[in-house]
């Protein structure tokens, strides 16, 4: 389905033409849901800064940001798109640096701005290449022209890098884990829930314009998906900071989406419409799902941080008793993001799995191998994510408080903050139990994206399993209720006694003895420590009566540590050196002119 909207707009090459189609619809839903929820949440969340900071500016940029998002998705013209894109980056920058008195926040914001802007410059090139080939700046008109496979490849790569920066593909993700923790929580929710999806949207739009691509593109996306997904979740496991951890999980989920897209591309280039629709559809559905549950998680994290005034996971504990509602909502988010059944994460991952298995069976050797790799990677991501969120939930909400900041009495969380989270949680459950509507929308989007009409396909192959799953899940719920009843019956007349946790012989074990998140993740992290650059200082017990010992463990981001930082530093030092050398003497200046003159004379007058 397509709806157009035109207005006169007088800028060079620009035309104010908007368009809603099945592709943009998915993203539009995500935007509206999350921007609205985060906005309502902000009312409660920002109350403590009332008067102490320029609220007006913040609100202005929030509205600007939302508008920009909508226009990015609706724009049907290159200039309009790029304009909205720039607005999005800039306004989100000012949303991120809300706490600009902290140097870390400033650095994060600047890194974000630079990264997204550099990406945008690549997009300029890409769009102009396309527009030059298409002879127009209008997406529809461009999409009607055919691209030579070489040009298509170049455009594809430019799009992967340019949009990938925004989406947070590894290794160009470096801004992401810094920006998300720096921003206020409702902003991080929107950033991670919606803005990085704009990168995905851009890639989808480009794929839609380019039509059929050579199959190596599919493999590229597949590989990106595998790497980003697995690395993302591994990095997440090593984090001690709640929002940074969530940020890395966004990278993981982007990886899953990329897997779906890659599968779709493979299907397209091998003319297997089912793969295409399953891949693209799954990816699109996961876009929506991820924005919902990741939004929920960030909002929950915000609620926690607002009370405990720290993001350090190992400082928290036992919050389930203090903020029960938040803890349950966060649990819902956690279960969904692990892709566990009953919630929406499972549905989209199931669709992608399904497509990958289909590809495994039907694609030629290399493709099948790729799909197999994808399946394994997905499985690994799932189990690692499970471990990661078990760690988070267990350490933050369960057990006993690990630090005074987690004990001190607080007021209850404002209902301005609770209600949006409730909405998101409900959505998670709804899509998880009744996915049919959203799934069919996603498949429509996927079909539109790949220019295949679904009417020619028998979508039963996916919908029948889905309906089976639904019935199974309902049975599962029934089972749980039944077992609960049984338990009641067994316990009838008995009063369960409440004691201390059994300390295996130790009496009054203190809260400090609990397993920390780092120690929980340690086994996994150490298995891959060479990849994560895992560092561990101190901690070994020396003499018979050990004194107080300190243990710090940290992981580092390879692409940032070994590529981007050094590059920037080199450039800066080079420029400083040159500056000193060239600014010394006027003679230098004159000499440049002299040499230039000579050069031109020799070049042109021979």
């Amino acid at each position, binding site marked *: 389905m397509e709806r157009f909207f035109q207005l006169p*707009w*007088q*800028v*060079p*090459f*620009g035309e104010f033409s908007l368009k809603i189609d099945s592709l943009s619809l998915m993203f539009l839903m995500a935007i509206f849901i999350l921007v609205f929820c985060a906005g309502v949440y902000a009312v409660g969340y920002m109350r403590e800064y009332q008067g102490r900071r*320029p609220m007006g500016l913040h609100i202005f940029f929030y509205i600007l940001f939302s508008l920009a998002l909508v226009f990015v998705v609706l724009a049907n013209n290159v*200039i309009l798109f*790029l*304009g*909205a*894109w*720039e*607005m999005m980056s*800039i306004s989100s920058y000012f949303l991120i*640096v809300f706490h*600009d*008195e902290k*140097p870390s926040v*400033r650095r994060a*914001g*600047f890194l974000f*701005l*630079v990264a997204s*802007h*550099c990406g945008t*410059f*690549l997009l*300029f*090139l890409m769009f*102009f*290449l396309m*527009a*030059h080939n298409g002879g127009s700046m209008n997406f529809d008109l461009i999409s009607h022209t055919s691209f030579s496979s070489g040009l298509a490849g170049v455009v594809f790569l430019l799009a992967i890098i340019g949009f990938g920066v925004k989406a947070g593909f590894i290794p160009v993700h470096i801004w992401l884990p810094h920006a998300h923790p720096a921003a206020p929580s409702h902003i991080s929710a929107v950033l991670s829930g919606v803005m990085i999806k704009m990168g995905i949207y851009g890639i989808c739009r480009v794929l839609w314009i380019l039509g059929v691509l050579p199959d190596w593109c599919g493999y590229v996306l597949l590989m990106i998906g595998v790497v980003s997904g697995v690395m993302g979740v591994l990095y997440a496991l090593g984090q001690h900071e709640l929002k940074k951890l969530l940020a890395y999980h966004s990278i993981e989920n982007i990886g899953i989406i990329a897997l779906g897209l890659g599968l779709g591309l493979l299907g397209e280039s091998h003319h297997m419409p089912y793969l295409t629709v399953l891949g693209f559809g799954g990816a699109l559905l996961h876009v929506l799902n991820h924005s919902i549950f990741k939004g929920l998680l960030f909002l929950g994290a915000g609620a926690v941080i607002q009370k405990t005034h720290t993001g350090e996971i190992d400082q928290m504990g036992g919050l389930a008793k203090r903020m029960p509602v938040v803890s349950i909502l966060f649990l819902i988010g956690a279960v969904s993001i692990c892709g566990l059944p009953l919630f929406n994460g499972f549905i989209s991952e199931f669709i992608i799995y399904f497509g990958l298995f289909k590809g495994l069976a039907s694609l030629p050797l290399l493709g099948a191998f790729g799909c197999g790799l994808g399946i394994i990677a997905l499985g690994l991501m799932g189990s690692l994510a499970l471990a990661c969120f078990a760690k988070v939930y267990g350490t933050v909400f369960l057990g006993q408080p690990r630090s005074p900041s987690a004990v001190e009495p607080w007021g209850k969380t404002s209902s301005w903050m609770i209600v949006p989270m409730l909405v998101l949680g409900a959505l998670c459950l709804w899509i998880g139990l009744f996915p049919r509507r959203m799934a069919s929308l996603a498949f429509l989007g996927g079909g539109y994206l790949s220019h295949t009409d679904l009417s020619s396909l028998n979508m039963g192959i996916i919908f029948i399993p889905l309906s089976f799953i639904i019935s199974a899940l309902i049975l599962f719920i029934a089972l749980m209720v039944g077992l609960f009843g049984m338990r009641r019956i067994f316990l009838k007349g008995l009063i369960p006694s409440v004691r201390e946790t059994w300390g295996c012989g130790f009496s009054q074990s203190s809260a400090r003895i609990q397993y920390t998140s780092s120690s929980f993740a340690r086994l996994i992290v150490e298995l891959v420590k060479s990849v994560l650059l895992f560092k561990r200082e101190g901690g070994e017990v020396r003499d018979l009566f050990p004194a107080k010992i300190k243990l710090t463990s940290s992981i580092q981001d390879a692409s940032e540590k070994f590529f981007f930082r050094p590059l*920037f530093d080199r*450039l*800066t*030092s*080079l*420029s*400083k*050196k*040159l*500056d000193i050398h*060239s600014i010394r003497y*006027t003679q*230098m*200046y*004159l000499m*440049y*002119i002299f*040499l*230039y*003159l000579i050069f*031109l*004379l020799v070049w*042109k*007058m021979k």
Partner: protein
Amino acid sequence: MLTILIATPFLSALAALLPVSRDFRLKLFLAVSVIYSLITALFWKDLPASEYNGFLVLDSLGLILLSIISFLFLSVAIFMIGYFQHEQRSNRTLSACVLFLLSTMTLVAVSYHFGLLWVAIEATTLFSAPLISFHRNQQSLQATWRYLLICSVGIALSLMGTFLLAIAAHDVHTLLLPALLKGAPLLSVNWLKLSIIFFIVGYGCKMGLAPTHSWKPEAYGQSTGMVGVLMAGVLPQCSFLALLRISQICNKTGLTGFYSSILIVSGLLSFVVPAIFILGEKNIKRAFAYSSIEHMGFLVLGLGLGGVGLFGALFHMINNALAKVIMFLTAGSIAQKYGSSRTDDIRGVIHIYPVTGIFMIAALLAGTGVFPFATFHSELLILNASIISQHYFLAAVGIICLAVMFIGIGKIVLGVIHGQPKEPLLAKKENVIMNAAIAVAVVLLISIGLWMPSPLEHLLHHAVTLIGAV
């Protein structure tokens, strides 16, 4: 009409030299620039007749420059009033030279004779020199010295170019533009080539194209905000007008390829050089100077690429001027508040001076061509032109340099506006008049970026046809 336009500022400049009160000078300057702008506005309806048997003619190219001049001087005049509310120093030389500058620049805009054009540009150099050394100190003296030396070299070379052109036009017996265009077939190509080379190097010095750019960082770094506006916004564009005039001839004599190849090379250089230097920069004005070099690169690149690029270049003339107003006036007001424009001395502007802080952000966005500002469109046009004419390498390098420039300028500006506020050295409160002057430019630039008024579009199109690029 044109004569009035040139004479009025000249006479008032002489008046400003007389021992009169500071306020009188300011008011005089304001009045002159208001009248000037009104007359220019009239010209938008219909162009005036030529004067002095074709030596002074205003065509659409000239009109573009003229409008830029009028707007910039107007905003500077307004800004000046606010500025001198906080200053005790005498403004005699300043206002006199600014008015002289106004009249000579007008001469540049309307002169149709290459000799006259050269004289006018020469004159602008002379009158702009004293402006740099408004703060009488060692560095500003150095800056002035260099500016004069390098620009005079440039001037000399362009004079050589003029002479060579005269020889090339031996059979035309005049340097009047229409005659040259009419008698294009008679021009002897080799001499023309030589003259073009000298012109490009000569006027390039004045325009600040790499590698002849080197006076810019110091001159801009030393001059006060308002002077910076004039030096960065109009002065180079005057020389660019000269280059445009030359390109008119080239397009007639089939030297387009020759000309554009040189322009593209120098444009490329003007992209790369500032990108190399910007990262190490620690002074706001100097950073802006580098960005202005880059913008000059945009202009010549657009001219060299032709077609869409030419349109973009002409459009960029206007946008660049407006952007420079925002950048340098804001830098000026900050420098006045903090007594320095080094990034180490300034922190958290947006917390102490919210309005100035926002203008600073606007300066960053305008200078680096971010969407709501019209510079975005013109830069895109020129990039697009490089793709269309299949200079992929050029496009790639340009993109990289733009990115680096953004990083550099962003680092400086954001480092200045954010952070724990640092108490300004000579704390002065926001000045409404100064801010108004900047705000007008901001609004104007944004509104052009959001909606390109059709008269402007027609003017630009007409100018493109005038240059007659193939």
